[in-house]
């Protein structure tokens, strides 16, 4: 299992935990994963140990009205765990997520009016530039870390992105 795969697996487990999944199985192309979380006994049924999760953090903060009033273009950035949520929103079994390695502004093309680097349906190669994230006036070319088919773009051009925010979903070849 290579580093990328391992990272994907870890992401998935974090997500499962966050979603309070008790047991999980996955089989795909020679890969088979099965897991159950602690406190999820077979017969225990819905005996969810809430203590394991942070109650406090499930709490919708009083600050939410203000957050709603945030400029629309920042709404994806404003909630703490948004990257994870977005990640899951676009994630289906077997998809690889290209994430932003830096904080900045996402651009799909090298210049206004130019062709986007990639579009949904395109085939990308590992190392191919897929977009630009501008940070401190610098245009940073972001490369794909896998080869495959672009299944989804998760961010609109011109939108701010945080570290680790999902940009594209790619079905690996």
């Amino acid at each position, binding site marked *: 299992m290579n580093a990328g795969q391992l990272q994907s697996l870890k992401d998935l487990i974090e997500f499962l935990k966050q979603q309070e999944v008790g047991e999980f199985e996955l089989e795909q192309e020679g890969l088979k994963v099965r897991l159950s979380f602690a406190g999820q006994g077979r017969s225990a049924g819905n005996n969810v140990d809430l*203590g394991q*999760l*942070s*109650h*406090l*953090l499930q709490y919708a*903060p009083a*600050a939410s009205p*203000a*957050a709603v009033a*945030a*400029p629309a273009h*920042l709404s994806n*950035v*404003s*909630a*703490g*765990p948004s*990257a*994870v949520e977005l990640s899951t929103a676009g994630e289906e079994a077997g998809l690889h997520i290209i994430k932003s390695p*830096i*904080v*900045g*502004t996402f651009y799909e093309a090298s210049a206004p009016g130019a062709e986007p680097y990639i579009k949904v349906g395109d085939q990308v190669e590992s190392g191919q530039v897929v977009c630009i994230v501008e*940070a*401190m006036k*610098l245009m940073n070319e972001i490369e794909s870390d896998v080869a495959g088919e672009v299944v989804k773009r998760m961010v609109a051009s011109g939108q*701010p*992105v*945080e*570290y*680790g*925010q999902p940009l594209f979903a790619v079905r690996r070849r």
Partner: protein
Amino acid sequence: MRFTNSLEFNTFTELRFMFRKVLIANRGEIALRIISACKEMGIRTVAIYSEADRNSLHVRFADEAICIGPPRSADSYLNVPAVISAAEIADVDAIHPGYGLLSENANFAEVCRASNIKFIGPPPEVTRLMGEKEKARMSMKKAKVPILPGSEGVIQSEEEALDWARQIGYPVILKASAGGGGRGMRVVRSPEELPNFFRAARTEAQNAFGNGDLYMEKFIERPRHIEFQVLADEHGNVMSLGERECSIQRRHQKLIEESPSLQVTPKMREEIGATLKRCLETIGYMNAGTVEFLMDEDGKLYFIEMNTRIQVEHPVTELVTGVDLVKAQFRIAAGEKLSEIVTRPIEMRGHAIECRINAEHPEKFTPSAGKISVFNLPGGNGVRVDTAQYAEGIVPPYYDSLIAKLIVHGTSRAEAVARMERALSMFVVEGIHTTIPLHQRIFADEDFRVGAFDTKFMERFFEREKLRRESAQ
């Protein structure tokens, strides 16, 4: 009976200008402290966080939060491009750096300026000046702030050494210019000892560092660490908010701070305050700052260095002066005058003490990261807790171990000591180790209780504990 006109306290201050939105370039309790001040001033807040801090309260209670990098500080909180980039996409007016991290990084302050973002702190030139210890010493000396007497440059000969020692006054300490770690170092208590010690130190320095250059400083046997809080506006006005006593340290890490110091008389406080005011007005200091001194056994103060940021221990000054230092930082940065921010003469009321509650093993001092299972805070009269931790929260292993500051205020030091003991006994943390039991032992110590301590206190304290343990066996 004397009552102040209540109306004085009830006018809504109309601010001419205030920041609309601020990014807090920090984490933990200080980030939450700054967010609290912003909320109270109607300023929108943007938290930044590393992946390890996703579930932190500074993220939860800020209006917006942006993940800027992986757990390691170097890749996230210390990553200037990431921080500035976050400030730009969130479109903030200002950045508050807190303490540690980027707070005394003049380059960062410069990048903020270039990016048209107000840095809440002094201008980079001042930070840079104060960051170069020798320049800072000279600036202070010029303004008649007492500095630790010492030789000027390298001492060439025994005769020169004797000469300097006579000027400085015994005891003195010889130090290796290239050195550190005690090597090439000698404490000299009389002119008779000097020649031999000088030769020995030079040889030792030569052998250890390949450089035998020595210099000399006044040696203080049992120094106290005493620091003065100052505020300076952007109109040339500086004000002292009295001192903090921070001698209870373990390996140069402060454990307990208090204000006022038992050693500083009102006359000294006034004199040092006036000198600092003159000196910092000359330098062009701005925003909050702390001037650190050593105090010798005769109660004389010697300047060591200046910290150009808010300090961990700022709450003790807030409690005795009634001035909200973090709010003052924002108001100064927004261009207000000190006379508008602090409308009454500074008066030190009662006594405040702070205990730093660290996630550490109370005997071994190894960091104790992990998940907090129980977190019961003390409350009630005269007790303040600054923390970003909570039950079920995680203490990540990547950052400093401070998880809470427990601060008490009483009418006297005796009341403050008793109140701290009470509060410590009601502060319950489980799941990780903390310094709470250590603080309880210190507060039971007779020397501590009567205020008889210096920066060597903790060494003696551990020594006494060890002896007691041994004799008990």
